[in-house]
């Protein structure tokens, strides 16, 4: 047993860190340090910088046009981005639709979409949730009726992360309302958001930001070659996508970044520093848990149900760190600022994002499988209860 990374892995970490230091735009970096959201242009520029280095798609195999990282390299790479902090490659492109196209796409779809997805020439949005279909995703109602070489799509999608930046949306639609099980009548469809009949409406979230959207689909004519994985086979594609989404989700590096901010604000406030230390102790141990699961994944392609453990504890600690940051900042953090406010002094911590980020981070235990859903998965899959 050995927790240490190999010399090559350590060198890779240094490579990544140097690359970020040398290539990340200072304004983007400053925003990330402050907890602000970079603009679309900044995110795209960074992803293209990474893509030029071959790192924009850390989870993609060489065959799919990715770097072919080992699970450890991928972990190190993301951890460095989280700690830097630098924007992650756009997850809708890189973690969600890219692997789906690789696994289920036609040769034509791969040719047309993979490279553009990596370079974010196409920004993708996710169209899964609906007002009546949250945890119960298969209850979705958006319908797609086949007419010749098109699907006519009608429905209402919600919680599209960054959908207003997006060019295309990957979505789940009901193609067979009469299927014996609701999961069996669902297809996975790619929709160009510039098509007639698509309306995007912003949803402002409790951080005051516009990060998510609703999408209304009104007789949208989608070419049939935008179907992925075959008609009524969308549920298999979805399960594949969601299991990818769940790997490596402890986001320990992000929590470390929050703890660094806590320490800068805390000065010599012992009570806050002790709370930080208590979090750090758990976080350090969670890193080992993360490595154990990575180690097990090296020999297997099966999703590891212990990923739910990472999600649960990872979110718990990240939320706790954001709460502690709010405490360290004190009531001054209640002043409403926006991400567009001018930067403060170099050596001053920007308080403007602390309360919004605390508020919006509550969603981390809701999206991507809520904590309640994760506990049920653990109870049933690992403990055999239920």
């Amino acid at each position: 047993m050995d927790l240490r990374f190999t010399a090559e892995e350590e060198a890779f970490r240094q490579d990544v860190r140097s690359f970020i230091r040398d290539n990340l735009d200072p304004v983007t970096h400053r925003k990330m340090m402050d907890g602000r959201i970079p603009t679309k242009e900044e995110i795209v520029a960074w992803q293209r910088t990474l893509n030029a280095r071959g790192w924009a798609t850390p989870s993609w195999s060489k065959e799919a046009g990715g770097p072919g990282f080992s699970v450890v390299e991928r972990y190190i790479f993301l951890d460095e981005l989280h700690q830097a902090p630098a924007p992650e490659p756009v997850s809708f492109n890189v973690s969600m639709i890219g692997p789906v196209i690789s696994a289920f796409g036609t040769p034509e779809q791969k040719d047309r979409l993979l490279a553009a997805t990596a370079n974010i020439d196409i920004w993708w949005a996710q169209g899964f949730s609906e007002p009546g279909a949250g945890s119960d995703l298969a209850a979705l109602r958006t319908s797609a009726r086949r007419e010749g070489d098109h699907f006519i799509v009608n429905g209402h999608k919600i919680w599209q992360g960054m959908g207003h930046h997006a060019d295309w949306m990957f979505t789940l639609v009901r193609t067979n309302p009469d299927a014996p099980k609701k999961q069996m009548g669902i297809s996975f469809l790619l929709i160009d958001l510039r098509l007639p009949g698509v309306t995007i409406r912003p949803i402002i979230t409790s951080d005051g930001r516009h990060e998510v959207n609703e999408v209304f689909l009104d007789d949208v004519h989608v070419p049939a070659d935008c179907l992925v994985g075959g008609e009524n086979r969308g549920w298999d594609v979805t399960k594949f996508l969601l299991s990818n989404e769940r790997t490596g989700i402890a986001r320990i590096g992000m929590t470390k970044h929050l703890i660094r901010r806590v320490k800068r604000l805390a000065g010599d406030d012992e009570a806050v520093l002790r709370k930080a230390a208590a979090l750090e102790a758990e976080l350090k141990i969670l890193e080992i848990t993360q490595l154990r699961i990575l180690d097990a994944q090296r020999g297997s392609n099966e999703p590891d149900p212990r990923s739910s453990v990472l999600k649960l504890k990872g979110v718990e600690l990240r939320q706790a760190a954001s709460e502690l940051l709010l405490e360290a900042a004190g009531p001054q953090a209640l002043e409403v600022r926006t991400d567009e406010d001018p930067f403060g002094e170099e050596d001053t911590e920007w308080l403007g994002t602390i309360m919004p980020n605390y508020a919006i981070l509550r969603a981390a235990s809701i999206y991507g499988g809520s904590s309640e859903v994760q506990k049920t998965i653990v109870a049933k899959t690992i403990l055999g209860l239920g």
Partner: protein
Amino acid sequence: MNLELSDDQRMLKDSIERLVTERYPFDKRHGHAAGARGFSDAVWGEMVELGLTMLPFSEHVGGLGLGGVETMIVGEAIGRGLLLEPYLSSIVLAGTAIAEGTAPEIAAAQLEGIMGGQTIAALADRAEVTATPNGDSVRLDGAASLVLGGDHADVFVVTSNDDAWIVPADAPGLSRRGFSLHGGGGAADLTLSGVQVSNEARVTASAVTRAIEAGIAFLAAEAAGAMRAALDVTVEYLKTRVQFGKAIGTNQALQHRAAEMLVEVEQATSAAIYGALLANEDDPAERARGTAAIKAVIGKTGRFVAQYAVQLHGGIGVSEEHVVSHYFRRLTAIGMLLGGTDEQIKRLAKMGGFTSATPHLAAA
């Protein structure tokens, strides 16, 4: 012991609750916030008409001479409706400081405009201000931060090294930077540079202490109202939101969470009552202890209820369009204003808590 409302108190409760229901449905709140002063002049006017702004002040300064319970009733309704009007800042905080800390004729003169709603007052308790005697007047220099309601206040009560001072907002040498607060309302940072006030503008430090105690009691009431409302909308959501073919409230894990929320809401309600009744407590040490306990419990319960109200709502819970995200933010803000949870616990510990180390029978 009697924990029922009197008939008069019940009538007061009905009228403020009617005002909130009629004037402050959630879909109108945004419009109110867009008013010139960040709240609704019309609603504020109605509150004045109902006499709410006169409630806590004694009759010899022109008030109604009512007590903590009446203020609590107002606070709970304000919390439930997420009202933006400057009741806490102008009436409870600044108003109490002036009413308790100046001579009756000065208080009456100052409070007239405040109770009438045309003057907005604010208490600058987070201040580092030096008061330098200068003959008949006093010169104030320094700064104050996060003055609640200070963004549109016409007059300030500014604490200094020992006492506090009534300072008009347009006093030469006073400048302010106003801003909005998460959770609603606004505040200001002040700078004072050679501000001259007369000796008669003096407010006693003990009145400022009482004002902050009254402010915390009010926040407790507001929090209790907001928490119960947040629980109500959450329970309603659990009953109506269907997933996997059944209301999500049939999930035992969510039922238990809602039950845990109710326990904390009951505690918050008790904290508000305790705050209301502490107003009649003559022993300052007992008031200080009680106030610290109230604020600590409100902070803790508010945090818990706010977080789980959002969690049980799922995604919609973090949307600006859903009221629960506003309860979340207001409760978070309440937890941090006038001294956060840990700060209060630290104070309470320093005061020795409620229970001494001495055995019960030996002590009495």
